[in-house]
């Protein structure tokens, strides 16, 4: 008998089969993922997701019988029947005596399974790309690092691997049969101590041969040399900062904040996938702006006037203080109901155009509305902020604006804003 411990074998033997299966049911899974992003709490968005795949999603057809005209069942547990009794058909599936005995027309049921976080996100973010009009490509934002990668036969003297070289040398000397120094010394001693009568010639001859062999097979040969090898590898230093700007004045309802939150969350998930390090800065504003933590950002409501420019000014200040645009990829997302003081619109636009946009990879403005305000398509009038920003959407490459009134529109809008583009810039939907 043999006992084998297989526990250390790599698990996940099914991984590749699972990938194939996911590819197979991709459409279904995509739909489910979209549902999930709509229905679930934002905090859960990055957690594993349960997905239901309907039977047809991955059907494995096989010839099978229908029930036929007459069915015979041999069943256990007769209670009171005797031969010839007529009994009612059981109602409902699988209940009561004489029901379908669990075989035969085995239609597959839909089944549920859990997507891993990685699987979920990769489907969730599939096709999403950094907008190609970003001013710094990711490639440029990488440095080369170097790391040990074995030995090579060439290199600089400083990298000579002495131990390895000596090992090679020793191996070669043994293989080629280089006589050790001890042999030479021994021979020399023998010659010195030998008498005339001994066969000195022969011994001399041997000594010469040994010395010649030692000459021919050097102690250290160029082929023995080994150098420590270093390999260059791209070292991502990409880091990004995301500015979340939100209007928290009294006119922002919980619904609007929820919309905004969902949008920021998507942006965050998206950025964490693209960059090693993503910082988030939350700035809320009424008539004055303030950097706050996430909790305060989304939960508290203030009252007061609305001066949007204050938030942009704050963002500009923070960038100057902490995020050098040379090292950081900067993203901004602004959510507002579009209500701004008329007198501030001009200043806001200038601030965005002259200060913020040149520093940003991308800046998205999301106008949130109450759900009864209909679809984004039916929106015609335009809020004061919307109208102020509108010219920028056509003139600036890294600025987009959208209006959203319902949760389920967040994801499509987000996709629109970040989808892979073929160079051409999509027209903003106004």
């Amino acid at each position, binding site marked *: *008998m*043999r*006992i*084998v*411990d*297989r*526990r250390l*074998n790599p698990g*996940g*033997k*099914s991984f*590749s*089969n*699972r990938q*194939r*299966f*996911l590819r*197979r049911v991709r459409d279904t899974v995509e739909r489910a993922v979209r549902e999930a992003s709509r229905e679930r709490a934002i905090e859960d968005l990055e957690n594993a997701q349960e997905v239901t795949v309907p039977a047809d999603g*991955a*059907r*494995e*057809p*096989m*010839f*099978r*019988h*229908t*029930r*036929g*005209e*007459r*069915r*015979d*069942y*041999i*069943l*256990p*547990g*007769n*209670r009171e*029947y005797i*031969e*010839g*009794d*007529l*009994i*009612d*058909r059981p109602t409902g599936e*699988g209940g*009561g005596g*004489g*029901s379908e*005995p*669990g*075989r035969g*027309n085995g239609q597959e049921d839909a*089944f*549920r*399974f*859990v997507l891993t976080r990685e699987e979920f996100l990769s489907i969730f973010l599939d096709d999403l790309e950094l907008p190609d009009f970003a001013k710094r490509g990711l490639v440029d934002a990488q440095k080369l690092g170097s790391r040990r990668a074995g030995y090579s036969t060439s290199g600089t003297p400083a990298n000579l691997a002495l131990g390895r070289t000596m090992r090679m040398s020793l191996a070669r000397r043994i293989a080629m049969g280089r006589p050790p120094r001890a042999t030479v010394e021994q021979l020399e001693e023998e010659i010195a101590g030998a008498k005339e009568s001994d066969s000195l010639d022969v011994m001399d001859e041997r000594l010469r041969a040994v010395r010649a062999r030692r000459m021919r097979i050097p102690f250290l040969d160029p082929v023995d040399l080994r150098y420590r090898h270093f390999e260059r590898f791209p070292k991502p230093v990409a880091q990004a900062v995301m500015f979340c700007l939100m209007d928290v004045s009294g006119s922002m309802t919980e619904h609007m904040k929820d919309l905004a939150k969902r949008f920021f969350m998507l942006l965050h998930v998206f950025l964490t996938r693209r960059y090693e390090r993503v910082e988030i800065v939350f700035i809320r504003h009424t008539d004055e702006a303030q950097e706050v933590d996430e909790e305060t950002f989304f939960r508290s409501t203030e009252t007061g006037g609305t001066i949007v420019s204050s938030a942009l000014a704050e963002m500009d200040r923070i960038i100057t203080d902490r995020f050098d645009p040379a090292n950081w990829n900067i993203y901004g997302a602004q959510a507002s109901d579009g209500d701004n003081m008329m007198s501030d619109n001009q200043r806001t636009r200038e601030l965005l155009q002259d200060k913020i946009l040149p520093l940003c990879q991308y800046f998205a403005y999301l106008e949130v509305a109450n759900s009864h305000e209909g679809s984004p398509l039916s929106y015609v009038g335009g809020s004061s902020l919307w109208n102020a920003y509108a010219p920028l959407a056509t003139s600036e490459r890294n600025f987009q604006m959208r209006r959203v009134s319902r949760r389920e529109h967040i994801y499509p809008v987000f996709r629109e804003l970040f989808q892979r583009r073929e160079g051409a810039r999509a027209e903003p939907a106004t």
Partner: protein
Amino acid sequence: MSDALLFTGKDWSFETLQHIHDAVEVVGKGELGLDTFPNQIEVITAEQMLDAYSSTGMPLLYRHWSFGKRFAQYEGVYRAGLQGLAYEIVINANPCISYVMEENSATMQALVIAHAAFGHNHFFKNNYQFRQWTDASGILDYLAYAKNYIAACEERYGELEVERLLDSAHALAPQGVDRYPRKRPISLSDEERRDRDRREEHERLYDDLWRTVPRGAEKTKKSIDHQRALLRLPQENVLYFLEKTAPRLQPWQREVLRIVRLIAQYFYPQQQTKVMNEGCATYCHYRIMNRLHEKGQISDGSFLEFIHSHSNAIRQPTAHDPSYSGVNPYALGFDMMCDIARIVREPTEEDRLWFPEIAGRKDEMAVLKEVWANYRDDSFIAQFLSPHLMRKWRLFHIVDEEDAPKLKVEKIHNERGYHDLRRGLAAEYEVGRHAPDIQVVDVDLAGSRKLVLHHRVFSGKLLDVVDAALVLRHLTLLWGYDVLLEEVDATTNEVLKAHLASPDQ
């Protein structure tokens, strides 16, 4: 024999496993006289058990999305806590491989070793179905070969191409087994070695079959007969037929069909001996665990733990129970084995009448071993289901006629019903119940190359239309030309229904 405890508490070590195995072997081989392949016990994690589960229990198998689907299903059920994992998987191989999970308690390991490494192992080695159809020493090598071969095909012809082919082959896998032995028993390792020779042979045959150069009328007629003979029709093994004669398949595609077919064939005996195989293993573990307890090698506590698992495994809800989902093969198998032992030891008058050959023979292991070697589920039940057991199970026979307003109780467990009940239950395990009886009957050799299949229909059980259409589509993909499937009444030979499928060009 030592009366020291093999283990205390739940924990086990490799040393414990070895002791357990040795103690079980003393009882299983020494006292019960089981005849087994050498054992190999592999310890795996729950996740690996899920892996093994989803690839039909085999340690290595080629890749296909359907195994991923199965994994997702099992995992879902397992995570939801709806169902524990099987404690063991055992592979019909030489040496016989039993997987045990690291999470199992020491008692469970003993149970698994007694059940799988001795019970199932004995059954695999001795039952005629397995001896005839499976090559225990070749299977692991063959699976490794199949896995590599299919991976190589994926590399060469693309994953999607191979996936499509496997989809089609899987759809026909139930029609890819030989139900009756041919002249020569197959040896998987031989198959693998002679693969190339065979392929060259097909190519010669293929040329001859599909020659399009016109010949004289007389000659054509004669050669069509000859060709038909070459096709060896009718042929119940559809995959075999396609592999040998489908005109459009590439050699590698034929080999993939062959792999799917041989693996299906390997599993075929398992479907036919579920009740017997589980019955044998359960009976063996029950005897062995009892004996170990008797000898003082396992404690009362762990014996109780064993009894608990054992009773769960052989639970049989009655048909009135909402949890009823058919006859539990563990329960039926175990009860029948115990019943046979009872008949051999202490027969009643009734038993002597029903089972004159075995009643009172005194040596129950000798009788059981004969039974295990020579029957499969349907013949086993038809032969050995006793009136005593039918009464114990309170079996009854229900007839459900399509037009009748009510169900009819045809027979119950009494003198008049025994034969009917026994025949009826045995019939549920007949080969025809697993897969519809479908045969290739003709090919239009002179003209359209249309393939004609017959489905023999019993008691009006036609094919499910939706599935049939999907499978036929796969069939046309493999065959390359029109396929006609006729459903023929088994008694009157009347064509009840016809399905025609054309390959989409």
